[in-house]
């Protein structure tokens, strides 16, 4: 029996509805100036996703430019060390540009071209989405402006330089908390002022409809590949899927193809920062309440007056006070379980992974790994965990060095 029929919901994969709602979440909460554009993006996407030529171009780029499929790797030494469940990594950190973000950047830039748009904008936190967007914009010869909080620019210098090498203009955002949420505000302001020629490439499964559904679809290649790979490897589906969550794009990409498989557990891992109880975290589901921001209704970190609170995480990519609306819905339906890992737990997992597997994980999936390290020892040795290694840690070595009190140039 599928998970869906057990709970009385026909399918967990049918959302959103026509107006972009997942239950009460999602929707299109944008200024009127943007509404006609949002509706146009939706029409263009609906036409593109059913167009074999669009899919063929996408698949060709994913295969030959990104390097998909990414491997499914059995983390043998980590498995042995933890002494429980069998742990696989989905190696999306091996993609061109070093993270899963390239999957949806390609999809959105192809859509922008199809719509005749000649200028690309994006927001970025850790810089992975900015690098991915700048990369694809360069590949197609489109000018690209990336908005990035001043504080994130400081802690993600390698990615800032990378984007500039790729020909993108990185605009420092000095308003508000000078992180990802402010970069998103600034990108929306840019879009509203350049409605004729500009396409906004959103970096996660959030924003106004159709972005959450569209980005999910572009990222679902992760879960579809895992399904094939694990069947070839183990002859059965995995027991537990684990992914970190900022906005939640890599997690939905992994989970979505499995949501109607009742026997596949899905665990999302938010950033607990210095600890949920300290208030200094980025865990919108664990420590937030529903509200409206950046075009969608979803769980948000906010005060009692509805003012958005600053998030905190050692990982710039998780440092966002909201979360994709579908995750809010999946939490309320109970289909996905959500956990959190602190900065310190993520750092410890980062070091463990480096030493045992020879892989430097990005600090984002290091949170997912911290959760795996917590649960694996308690599980039977025939229990299969697949964790999405959604980014590589090269960009984070300065942050990690600082946290460890080491100087590295």
């Amino acid at each position: 029996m599928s998970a869906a029929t057990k709970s009385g919901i026909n399918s967990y994969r049918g959302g959103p509805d026509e107006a972009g709602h997942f239950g009460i979440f999602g929707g299109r909460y944008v200024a009127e100036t943007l509404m006609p554009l949002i509706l146009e993006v939706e029409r263009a996407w609906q036409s593109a996703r059913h167009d074999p030529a669009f899919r063929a171009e996408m698949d060709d780029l994913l295969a030959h430019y990104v390097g998909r499929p990414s491997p499914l790797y059995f983390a043998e030494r980590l498995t042995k060390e933890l002494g429980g469940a069998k742990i696989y990594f989905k190696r999306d950190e091996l993609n061109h540009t070093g993270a899963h973000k390239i999957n949806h950047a390609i999809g959105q830039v192809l859509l922008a071209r199809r719509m005749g748009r000649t200028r690309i904008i994006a927001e970025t936190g850790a810089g992975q989405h900015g690098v991915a967007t700048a990369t694809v914009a360069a590949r197609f010869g489109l000018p690209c402006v990336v908005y990035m909080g001043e504080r994130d620019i400081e802690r993600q210098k390698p990615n800032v330089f990378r984007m500039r090498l790729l020909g993108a203009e990185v605009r420092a955002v000095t308003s508000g908390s000078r992180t990802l949420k402010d970069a998103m505000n600034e990108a929306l302001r840019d879009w509203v002022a350049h409605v004729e020629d500009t396409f906004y490439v959103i970096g996660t499964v959030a924003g106004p409809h159709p972005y959450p559904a569209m980005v999910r679809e572009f990222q679902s290649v992760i879960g579809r590949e895992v399904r094939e790979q694990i069947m070839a490897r183990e002859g059965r589906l995995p027991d537990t899927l684990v992914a970190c969550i900022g906005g939640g794009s890599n997690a939905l990409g992994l989970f979505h193809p499995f949501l109607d498989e009742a026997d596949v557990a899905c665990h999302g891992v938010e950033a607990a920062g210095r600890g949920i109880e300290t208030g200094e975290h980025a865990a919108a589901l664990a420590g937030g309440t529903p509200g409206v921001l950046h075009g969608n209704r979803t769980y948000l970190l906010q005060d009692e007056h509805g003012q958005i609170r600053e998030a905190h995480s050692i990982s710039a990519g998780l440092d966002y006070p909201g979360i994709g609306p579908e995750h809010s819905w999946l939490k309320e339906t109970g289909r996905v379980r959500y956990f959190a890992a602190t900065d310190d737990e993520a750092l410890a997992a980062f070091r463990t992974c480096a030493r045992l597997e020879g892989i430097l994980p990005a600090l984002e999936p290091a949170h997912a790994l911290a959760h795996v390290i917590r649960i694996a020892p308690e599980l039977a040795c025939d229990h299969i965990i697949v964790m999405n290694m959604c980014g590589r840690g090269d960009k984070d070595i300065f942050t990690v060095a600082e946290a460890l009190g080491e100087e590295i140039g």
Partner: protein
Amino acid sequence: MSGRIARRFAELARAGRAGLITFVTAGDPDMETSEEIVASLPLMGADLIEIGVPFSDPMADGPAIQEANLRALGAGATLAGVIGLVRRLRARDDHTPVVLMGYYNPILAFGVEAFVEEAAAAGIDGLIVVDLPPEEDAELRRPAKARGLDIIRLATPTTDDARLPKVLDGASGFLYHVAVAGITGTRSAAEETVERAVARLKRATDLPVAVGFGIKTPEDAAALARHADAVVVGSALVREVAAALDDGGDPVARVSALAKRLADAVHAAREEGAEGR
């Protein structure tokens, strides 16, 4: 039931002149000073008052109003505080229509039903919720209308003929024409563009049409007042608050002085001899 907005536009129509709508952010630089600023505006000739509700993430606003929001929040402004300001204003002025303009999240956090009840009781006449398009606004529009609060919709340069009926369906009070595609306080629209846009909107609705975004000087305001029923000025007034804070001046006096010049220019715009300047 209120009716202040409809009455004011009827008065303006009878007088054959356009109205001035002034926008300031509530609680900027603090709630007490802000109340004095707001109270001074009708005395300077403002016909309708728009009050911005501070929000941490005002994504449709330019730098001037963003900073005003941060100043107000830094001084402790809340939605309850803004409602209180209007309640006290009503003891001094029961005629000038007051419209709140802001973002949806503070209203959601307050509770939609409680908000419309308190807003109406305080003497607020209308609501502009920037990030709540017609597709999503039923949960606010229904209780608001039941309490006599107008839901003021925005029509923008991107609102084409196919979409305009959607914007007008459920609109009341007046129609707010956003003159430029962009954020507040930045670019300005050409007079001819606004003239054409207003004429188009007038063909589609009987609601009065106010024009805003990018109107900075009394001259800008007068030019557009020849075509629209009212002209909205916001960022320019909010910048006067910032300037006063910078140079130690009196924000109330600074904002009032500009409001007076704007009102005089708007009110004289359609008089004999004002044509063809």
